[in-house]
Structures are given as structure tokens and as C-alpha cells.
């Protein structure tokens, strides 16, 4: 194209309408990735606390419940401030919709909130031990899906880089949650009692990085955003921070409190970066029509799908849906 030709009403582009995105950009604010982090940490911490309790590690148990409580406390504000109509946040519990991870997640968060408040409350104050004993397993059980439903929430959209990762993203978030819970407990707990926390932090961090790597690979072309612009930088940062933190804790976390704290901080930062990488990648993925049109057009060319358009003569009895 000569510059002359470019300087006009752009002639029809086979791939898009004036290069405009097909999908709308998500409208979510920065609170959301931070909630992903906080919620994940809270959920995993509840699990850690409960397990530690069973193991008789009462210091770790108490610290982990505190972490869970903190993570829980910041979650609703983060979610509510992201709403377009915050005063209507209660509508989140107006219905229960299995087709909406956000709906189910809201119920999980609500239930987890109740259970964790009782569990942690009784743990820290020593009051109502019976109620506490009852609430602890419930909180722990709910903590696990609380940590991973957010991955399902993203995967359940049309954003190619998110939906394409519906099988892998939950593991990225699980690993991250484990890492953040472990890291927080490592920081908060004395060297003596923190061994499980350190193992969880190191294992979680490695799992998160590994899962993210697998996810990007499995995404193929539509995974491109993870290597470009903001999402690219964040992904690299997340990997580096997680590995550095894990290494530091593994190497010196048992002897040096300082090293444990530093390692915990690195992993925490790494997990936050990972959540942000996923978040930003979604925006980049939605912004470029090629990620939307490309794979769909390819599907049709390959005959895996007939697509939504049909010329005269073509049969309108699709054999496609069955073959999926």
C-alpha cells in the first residue's frame, strides 16, 4: 500500500471492520486482580490453618487463621468498589446461578466469610470453642474453591486468552493461592513452627510458575498477549519473583527469619504480579480482533465448525455440534 492509498476511507479489510475489536474490553477495575490475590490467600490460609490445627501446630494455626481473616476482610470492599452500582452489592445474592461463577463465587465467599469469622474469632479469642470447632472444617472446605473459582470466572468469558485456559488457569490460581498463603504464614510465624508454611510457599510458587508455563504453551497463538506489552512484563516479573522467593526460602528460610520474611515478600509480590499478568492479558486479548476472528476463521477453514454464516445450497443440518 502506498501512503496515498492509506490516506483514504480504509478499503474493506478481510479480517475486521476498520481494525476495531469484535469483543468489548472488560470494564473491571484494578481492585479485581487484588481481590483474586486476597481471596486466594484467605481461602488457602483457612485450609492451612485447619490442617495445622489437626497437626497440632497451634502457633501456625493461629497465625494462618489471622491471615485468612485479613484476606477475607479486604475482599468484599474490593469487590463492592468495583461495581457500577455499589449500593446494589446485595443483588449478588438475589439468585443462585450455576451458569455464573460470579454468582456461585459470591455465595462461596459469603459462606466462607461466615465460617471463617466464627472459626478465626473463636481461635483468637478462645470463646465459643464448640462453634469454632464446627466452623473450622467448613471454612477450610470452602476456602479451596474460593481460591480457584476466580479462575473459572475469567475462563467463563469470550476473551480468548481466558476461555482458552479454562483447564489450566485454575491450577495457576491454586498454586498462587497456596504460595501466597504459605508466604504470608512464613512471614507471620516463628521459624520453629513455620516449616509447613515454608513448604507450602515454595511448593505453591513452583506450582504457580509451572502451571502458568503450561497454560501459555497450551494456549498457542492466542497466548501471545502473555509475551507482549504489560502482560508480558508482568508474566516475566511473576516468574522471577516466585522463583527467587522460593529459592531464598528453600535455601535460608529455615535458619534466617530475615530470609524467610524476604522470601515470603518476594513470593507475595510474585503472586500479585501473576494475577495482574492474567488480568492484563485478557484486556490485550479482547482488544485485537485477530485473536477473536483468527481462530474462529481457522476453525471454519479446517471444517471443525461450519461457522454462523451460510450461503445458499449449504445444508442447515449441522453435524458439527455433535462432533465437539
Amino acid at each position, binding site marked *: 500500500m502506498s501512503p496515498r492509498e492509506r490516506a483514504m476511507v480504509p478499503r474493506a479489510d478481510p479480517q475486521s471492520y476498520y481494525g476495531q475489536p469484535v469483543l468489548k474490553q472488560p470494564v473491571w477495575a484494578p481492585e479485581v486482580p487484588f481481590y483474586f490475590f486476597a481471596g486466594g490467600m484467605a481461602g488457602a490460609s483457612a485450609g492451612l490453618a485447619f490442617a495445622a490445627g489437626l497437626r497440632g501446630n497451634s502457633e501456625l494455626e493461629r497465625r494462618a487463621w489471622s491471615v485468612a481473616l485479613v484476606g477475607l476482610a479486604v475482599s468484599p470492599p474490593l469487590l463492592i468498589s468495583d461495581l457500577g452500582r455499589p449500593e446494589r452489592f446485595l443483588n449478588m*445474592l*438475589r*439468585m*443462585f*446461578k*450455576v*451458569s455464573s461463577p460470579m454468582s456461585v463465587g459470591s455465595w462461596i465467599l459469603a459462606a466462607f466469610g461466615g465460617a471463617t469469622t466464627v472459626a478465626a474469632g473463636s481461635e483468637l479469642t478462645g470463646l465459643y470453642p464448640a462453634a469454632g470447632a464446627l466452623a473450622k472444617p467448613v471454612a477450610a472446605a470452602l476456602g479451596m474453591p474460593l481460591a480457584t473459582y476466580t479462575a473459572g470466572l475469567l475462563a467463563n468469558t469470550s476473551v480468548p486468552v481466558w476461555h482458552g485456559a479454562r483447564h489450566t488457569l485454575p491450577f495457576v490460581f491454586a498454586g498462587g493461592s497456596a504460595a501466597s498463603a504459605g508466604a504470608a504464614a512464613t512471614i507471620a510465624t516463628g521459624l520453629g513452627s513455620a516449616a509447613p508454611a515454608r513448604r507450602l510457599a515454595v511448593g505453591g510458587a513452583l506450582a504457580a510458575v509451572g502451571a502458568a508455563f503450561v497454560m501459555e504453551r497450551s494456549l498457542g497463538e492466542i497466548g501471545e498477549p502473555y509475551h507482549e506489552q504489560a502482560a508480558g512484563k508482568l508474566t516475566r516479573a511473576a516468574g522471577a519473583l516466585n522463583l527467587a522467593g522460593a529459592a531464598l526460602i528453600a535455601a535460608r528460610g529455615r535458619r534466617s527469619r530475615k530470609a524467610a520474611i524476604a522470601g515470603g515478600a518476594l513470593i507475595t509480590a510474585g503472586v500479585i504480579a501473576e494475577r495482574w499478568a492474567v488480568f492484563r492479558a485478557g484486556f490485550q486479548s479482547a482488544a485485537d480482533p485477530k485473536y477473536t476472528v483468527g481462530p474462529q476463521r481457522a476453525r471454519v477453514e479446517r471444517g471443525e465448525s461450519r461457522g454462523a454464516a451460510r450461503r445458499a445450497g449449504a445444508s442447515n443440518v449441522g453435524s458439527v455440534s455433535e462432533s465437539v
Partner: protein
Amino acid sequence: MSFKHQLTGRAPALLRQLRDPLGLGKSAQSKRSATLTPRTKTADRMVQSVCPYCAVGCGQRVYVKDEKVIQIEGDPDSPISRGRLCPKGSATERYVNSPLREMKLKYRRPYATEWEELDLDTATDMIADRVIAARAETWEHANEDGLPLNRTRGIAFLGGATLDTEENYLIKKLFTALGAVQIENQARI
């Protein structure tokens, strides 16, 4: 039917879900949605009108509530437009209710830099005086050959073509009687 909705199915959505487990249909319907009606139905009256833009002459239905126009849309009865309207015709309600529309008379004195307020009757009175004066000043009884002209060219009129036939008639009648000949219209342009 909307009445029936009010009586039944008004339990909290969560309970209504028992009959609509996925919560995608009726159970999600709010009370407002269940009783929704178009404003054309609750209008006080509808009058048939004609689009004021181009000369196709599309039929319009004008809906009025509390002495205010609340909706203008195509009149399906019209054999000319069959209820259809173009973007301008479809915007007619915005035109008649436009916030930019001037509702007050404005007066600008010679050499003034600002508008002033002036009431309708005074203004009409002032204009009448000016017409009479201009006419007296510029009256042409006859031309140089003494042939009668009986006219004034001191007053001119230019009308838009969105004036009614009856209005044009009255204007031409008045100005002709006043001897004003420079009476023109968009039709010339």
C-alpha cells in the same frame, strides 16, 4: 396479564428459582419488568400529523401525555410512508422538545451587543409601526411613464417551506394588500 403477574410469582427471586432452577427466565424477572407497558399505551391521546422535514410527507403519530409530546413515530395508516420514518423524522420528538429550542422572544437594539427581553404584544406592535412607516416612506404610486405600480419595495419577506399552506395564504394576502411585492420563499432557492 401484567396484573396476574403482580398477584403471583412475586416471591423473592431465589424462591421463584425453585420453578426455574437455572434462574435464567421468569424467576429473574423483576416486578417492574413484569408490569412494563409502553408509554404510547399510557398516553392521554394520539393525533395524526405529518413529518416536518422533507416533502415526501410521511405520516406521523404524535402521542401526548399531560399536554406534552412524549412520542412521535411513523403512522402505519399512511399509504405514502406505511409507518416508516427516516432518521430526521424519527428524531422529530427531540426537535419539538429540544432543550435548545427558543421559547422566549428576543430583541436587539441598533448597535447593541446583547439581546434583550421583550414581550410578544409589544414586539408585534413595534413591527406593525415599522411596516407602516417603511411602506409610507418607500411607496411607489406609479412608474416614470405614469403607469400605476401601487406598491412598496421597502419591505421584503423570505419564508421557509415548512410553513403551512394556510399560513402562506394569509401572508401573501396580507402583503399583497399592503402593496409589498418582494415576497419570496425557499421554493425559489
